[in-house]
């Protein structure tokens, strides 16, 4: 039987695309290589406990009444009533440049504006003008890459404020070294500073289960543990895919959410245009998780939800020449969301930029790799304690994953969670019935990834069926 639409990749963009399509097309089939859904936002078990990967917080918080907000538009498109989920807003987050300044922000943009007025009075008017510019800017019009750094130099007087504004936005959504496309900046500025952050009340597994059950209830089919070995084309038309076990599936349309180069590798005889010029290397990250013995009733180490820290007044966002760059990082306290029911253990997570090539090299020697992982965990702890105060005595379990781990479990080349630095915003990679959604289409973050899946189905598939 010929499948009307095959979706490769069961991460959040693939799931969202499959749900959107299954609302109107029978027999949509979603293929996921791993035995679990979620892609970068998934989970694993250690010591009998569930650990989340990826998810710190979801950006784009919106109240249910705000119909035009991306979060609510997304839920309408998927036909998932808002009250299906128990979304918990963040308490308060911080941009902390050690020895320089600190800016607090929350889901109330006024707080951030006040903080900027207080810390950067000379730039208050310029910041207000920047906000006004962004409010009138349509980031969804497809334009060539424009440097946000250059843009901010022209708009804001104080370099420290430019660096501080960029730090969270690059960490949560830039595939580029030391910069971000202006359209992406506008999307992220709204998503993080103007809308804010939240998380689902349950864990990521429950969130994924809800999406999967909804998809199945719409009549969609799902195969996990099902890798694609090859995509077979005739000219510019995909005819079928060959699975890892040799089974062949014919399809009318194919949507790939696994990344641009990851998709090209599956195309036997590629007629696609050569890759868009790479704007520097792919960026890798290391993620550390510390689970504490302290009971959930004990006061948390901090009242912040996320802390973006940087040492000094210049923020470097690039592949480090060491395995990990501890000059900056993201600290997440997943317990600090409003109304979150107490968990068994307090948890602290940290993310830093990491070098895929150096970790790849280390992985050839398992003992050295493990030793470097352990020393990275300890080194990150030093940074965490300098922000949160001492807590190492209370650590029950710790775990970390490197760009090599991420590549192994998600198939993302070089473990680069934000994918190829250059994006293909219309999802068109030179085929008549094969399109790209997800990370390399360019909308990042959980809401972004899901909107990417939905918008490519809307623009490239539904109108043509």
């Amino acid at each position, binding site marked *: 039987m010929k499948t009307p639409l095959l979706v490769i990749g069961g991460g959040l963009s693939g799931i969202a695309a499959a749900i959107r399509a299954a609302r*109107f097309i029978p027999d949509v089939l979603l293929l996921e290589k791993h035995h679990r859904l979620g892609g970068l936002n998934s989970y694993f078990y250690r010591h009998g406990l569930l650990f989340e990967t990826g998810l710190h917080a979801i950006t784009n918080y919106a109240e249910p009444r705000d119909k035009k907000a991306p979060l609510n538009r997304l839920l309408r498109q998927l036909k998932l009533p808002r009250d299906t989920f128990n979304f918990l807003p963040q308490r308060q987050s911080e941009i902390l440049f050690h020895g320089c300044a600190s800016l607090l922000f929350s889901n109330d943009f006024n707080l951030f504006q006040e903080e900027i007025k207080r810390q950067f009075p000379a730039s208050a008017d310029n910041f207000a003008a920047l906000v006004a510019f962004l409010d009138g800017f349509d980031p969804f019009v497809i334009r060539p890459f424009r440097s946000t750094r250059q843009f901010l130099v022209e708009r804001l007087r104080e370099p420290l404020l430019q660096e501080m504004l960029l730090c969270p936005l690059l960490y949560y959504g830039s595939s580029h070294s030391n910069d971000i496309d202006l359209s992406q900046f506008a999307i992220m500025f709204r998503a993080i500073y103007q809308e804010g952050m939240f998380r689902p009340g349950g864990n990521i597994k429950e969130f994924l289960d809800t999406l999967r059950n909804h998809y199945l209830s719409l009549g969609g089919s799902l195969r996990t543990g099902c890798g694609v070995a090859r995509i077979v084309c005739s000219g510019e038309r995909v005819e079928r895919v060959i699975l890892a076990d040799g089974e062949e599936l014919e399809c009318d349309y194919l949507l790939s959410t696994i990344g641009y180069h990851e998709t090209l590798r599956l195309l036997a005889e590629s007629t696609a245009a050569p890759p868009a010029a790479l704007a520097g290397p792919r960026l890798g990250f290391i993620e550390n998780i510390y689970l504490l013995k302290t009971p959930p009733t004990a006061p948390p180490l901090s009242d912040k939800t996320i802390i973006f820290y940087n040492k000094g007044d210049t923020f470097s966002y690039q592949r480090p020449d060491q395995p990990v760059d501890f000059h900056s990082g993201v600290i997440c306290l997943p317990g600090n969301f409003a109304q979150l029911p107490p968990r068994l253990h307090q948890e602290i997570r940290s993310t830093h930029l990491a070098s895929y090539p150096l970790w790849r090299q280390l992985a050839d020697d398992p003992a050295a790799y493990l030793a470097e992982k352990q020393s990275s965990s300890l080194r990150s702890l030093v940074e965490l304690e300098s922000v949160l105060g001492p807590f190492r005595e209370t650590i029950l379990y710790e775990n970390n994953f490197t760009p090599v781990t991420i590549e192994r479990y998600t198939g993302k080349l070089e473990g680069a969670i934000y994918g190829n630095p250059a994006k293909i915003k219309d999802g068109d990679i030179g085929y008549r019935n094969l399109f790209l959604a997800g990370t390399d289409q360019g909308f990042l973050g959980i809401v972004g990834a899901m909107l990417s899946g939905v918008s490519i189905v809307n623009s490239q598939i539904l*109108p043509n069926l």
Partner: protein
Amino acid sequence: MTSTEIQELILEIIQDIDDEADFSDLDPDQPLRDQLDLDSMDFLDIVMELRKRHKLQIPEEDYPRLATLNSCVSYLTPLLHDA
């Protein structure tokens, strides 16, 4: 389908997209999108629902003809006269 039935069909589809949609002040000659806070993504749902329910294939270039409630009726009447 009569004009009234087509109107009801469209409103029912919109209600299904947004169960809080308020039709009390709806002007049938003004764009639905502006009055009901629908965006282009929601608008596509109207097209897709018409397809799903009545096997109507509406080409993209005809989407503007679904802009207002009255233009929907005039566009859909010949297409749905047997429905």
